[in-house]
């Protein structure tokens, strides 16, 4: 099963110069666990900020989320996978990179995001169809 079959095409993003508080506000508002951080340049230059980054790099250290920019804690570069890849190949990349979500790209343009939950769902659907993801 191709990764494009089950990706999330709408990507929530935040500019690199916004504060962590802005990011938290957006994540809570949209009920999501990560945001794409837009840096100047092409899409591959962007970063990602997750709820994990916010909790461990800011909140748990007692830092003020309104004084820290997302660019300071965002992970860069993002992990991009080709849109023509199969779910099994994407899962392998995610496992090797130890990441919970990967961005799906068409050359330098991000077309969607795939999370571990999507891999799990794809594996189950493939199984139901009599195919295999892994």
């Amino acid at each position, binding site marked *: 099963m191709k990764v494009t*079959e*089950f990706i999330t*095409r*709408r990507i929530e993003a935040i500019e690199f110069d916004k504060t962590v508080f802005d990011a938290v506000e957006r994540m809570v508002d949209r009920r999501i666990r990560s945001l794409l951080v837009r840096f100047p340049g092409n899409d591959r230059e962007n970063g990602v900020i997750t709820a994990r980054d916010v909790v461990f790099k800011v909140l748990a250290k007692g830092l003020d989320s309104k004084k820290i920019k997302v660019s300071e804690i965002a992970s860069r570069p993002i992990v991009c996978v080709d849109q023509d890849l199969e779910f099994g190949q994407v899962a392998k990349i995610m496992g090797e990179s130890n990441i919970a979500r990967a961005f799906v790209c068409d050359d330098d343009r991000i077309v969607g995001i795939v999370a571990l939950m999507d891999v799990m*769902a794809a594996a*189950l*659907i493939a199984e*139901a169809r009599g195919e295999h993801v892994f």
Partner: protein
Amino acid sequence: MFFKKIFPKSNKEQEVIRDITRHIKLLCTDFGFFKTALETSDRSLMREVMHIEREADSIRRDIISKIYDGAFLPYIRPDLCKFVEIVDSIFDLLEDTGYKYLDVKLPDPLKDECVHVAFLNRRICEMLLIAYEAMLKGEDFREKMLAIRIYEKKIDDIKFDLIRDARSIEVTNFWEGEILSQFLSCLTSISDVIEDASDHLQIIHLSMK
């Protein structure tokens, strides 16, 4: 096969089973036409969706007639008829969505997501067919049901994004906005009805035990 074990000698039941399979397969074809028509903006192909709905109606009438002509034990007939009616209502909903499409100018920012929903609708329909065939073979089809629910949830997620995106589309008059809203609503509610059909399939399966 599951039904064959219960009705080994009757041809009427086998005819109904074959017709229901044909009905669901036609629905998959209908979804395929719809998705291609949407993707390629092919209005004549979209009209084909309306023709298929009429063919589906005729299959539905045949099935219901055969059931009440003595196929299956009376206690199972209402559930089978209900399942067939639900599947038929999906054809109706798809036809409505097609008509709305012909009436609306789909804004470019929404097109990709609409095509993706159409694609997922086709996939969920194929899964309904797989679940139905698994039930006939007496196989466990819990994973197929779960797959249908996963697809439905995915479409639901896209629905909320689409609604949010649609709010930023400029419309020139009330009806343009109204029909666009109806189109999106129809397109994203089809999966709910397919899920209802799959739930009913499970009821039939349980009642045959």
